[in-house]
């Protein structure tokens, strides 16, 4: 009897030890992630600050002219900042309504094969590498815009907006569908049982119940759009103009990417500062995302 007990006690001790080791491993893996984030942040801040100092923060952020290789170089990144903001906003304006209605359709209305087809299509859209989006945009969209609007060059803010809008669709749709599908069916049943039609129910009960998830989807789309480099590099034209719809523009991301390989000195430092500004935007968006996700959790509890 007592020996048996002793055995189980030992067994328990052993299991607890294993538990603790596993716990430690997980903690370490988690800390690696945190470490990476910290390292990137510190590196970006350290390498991004000097140029801002030299150029002057105001001159850097609000200067309208970028001429990094001129005899008398100018390092104003307002064109990039505004291009990134306008480009992202445009993509959201185009992409969110399409993505939202598509999500409602997939989550609530579509059945069987059609639902499967749409979901696979969205999944595939998510898997397309951004260089392919850029390529198709370059071959189809850019000439299309040139002909349709009779502008000298189709590589423009408009082309970038359209490409970005399509690129953010899958994340918007997927996250919104997940949010809509996790609305408790009891809510919808209650609405239907009061004589609301299915469509009324989806828009007046399901969507409001999923709103924090849908908001998170939009913020995720914003994050994707503002951080995208490759595809916009191929369709934006890359001239550091102040943004207008039909002219070539340069984004924060492409500003870093397009000059990095041959830059040096202050120019190189300025590119790091641009990356820091971009990083700041992304952090802001992440904070917004966390805010919406947390609010969603609170609401459900």
């Amino acid at each position, binding site marked *: 009897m007592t020996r048996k007990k002793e055995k189980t006690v030992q067994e328990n001790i052993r299991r607890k030890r294993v538990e603790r080791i596993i716990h430690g491993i997980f903690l370490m893996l988690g800390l690696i992630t945190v470490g990476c984030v910290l390292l990137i942040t510190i590196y970006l801040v350290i390498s991004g600050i000097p140029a801002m100092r030299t150029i002057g923060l105001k001159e850097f952020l609000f200067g309208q002219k970028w001429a990094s290789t001129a005899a008398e170089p100018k390092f104003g990144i307002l064109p990039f900042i505004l291009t990134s903001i306008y480009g992202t906003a445009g993509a959201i304006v185009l992409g969110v309504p399409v993505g939202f209605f598509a999500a409602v359709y997939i989550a609530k209305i579509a059945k069987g094969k059609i639902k499967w087809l749409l979901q696979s299509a969205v999944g595939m859209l998510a898997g397309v590498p951004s260089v392919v989006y850029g390529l198709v945009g370059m071959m189809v969209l850019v000439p299309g815009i040139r002909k349709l609007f009779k502008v000298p060059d189709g590589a423009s803010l408009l082309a970038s907006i359209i490409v970005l809008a399509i690129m953010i669709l899958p994340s918007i749709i997927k996250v919104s569908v997940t949010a809509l599908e996790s609305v408790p069916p009891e809510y919808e049943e209650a*609405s239907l*049982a009061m004589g609301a039609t299915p469509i009324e129910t989806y828009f007046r009960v399901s969507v*409001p119940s999923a709103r924090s998830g849908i908001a998170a989807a939009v913020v995720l789309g914003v994050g994707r759009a503002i951080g995208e480099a490759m595809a916009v590099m191929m369709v934006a034209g890359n001239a550091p103009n102040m943004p207008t719809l039909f002219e070539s523009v340069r984004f924060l991301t492409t500003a870093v990417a397009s000059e990095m390989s041959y830059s040096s000195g202050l120019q190189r430092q300025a590119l790091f500062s641009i990356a820091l500004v971009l990083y700041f935007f992304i952090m802001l968006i992440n904070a917004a995302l966390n805010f919406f996700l947390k609010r969603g959790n609170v609401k459900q509890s």
Partner: protein
Amino acid sequence: MNASDNHNNETIISTKDLCVWYDDFQALIDVSMEIPEKSITALIGPSGCGKSTFLRTLNRMNDLIDCAKTTGNVYYRGQDIFQSSMEVSELRRHIGMVFQKPNPFPMSVYDNIAYGPRTHGIKSRAKLDDIVERSLRNAAIWEEVRDKLRQNALGLSGGQQQRLCIARALAVQPDVLLMDEPTSALDPISTTKIEELILQLKENYTIIIVTHNMQQALRISDGTAFFLLGDLIEYGSTDVIFSTPSDKRTEDYITGRFG
């Protein structure tokens, strides 16, 4: 079968040879039943005998289940509810439903109650205010929530949530209320409150209630229907069913010998 022996109310809902299948499984077998107006009818029977199925067929909520098939007839005030001319949303407006688990929307108390009327086109603020107050009073919860109309309904207690759901159902001025074990998730005090409420509602509404609680059926219902494995075994006035059931299986069930 009918239970109108001891009251002369007109029939409001009747079913004739109603069968419901889920794929190949038959959940209701030739159920014919006449339910009198402004009375409380209890549906009893062991789990899985088809009570919820029967209830959900009456306002066509079972249409939502893809694999469900129905044959036979259901008449509401003489109209066949499966006729193509029957507007389902209109039917459900007349035949409201309260569910087993309280399911208020994650919105304010006010918006919960105003949801139905708004859906049916009422926009005037004054009218909505009026409906909200009246519905909450009718559901005996006005005093408890009058200062909380703007708060999220999910913050109420379970019993309050269920009365809120009843108020919400009343707000579209239904004719019939279907209740599927409305007190099974509640504590005894809330249950008593809801039973009292149901007895009051009988004045103006026809109530059909599924219950697992024999005492509850006995306390509140006028007629009782006993289901077993999809069959309507016995249906009659509650007094008779509970004192002198004519079927052995009914007796076994209400005396707790199975189920």
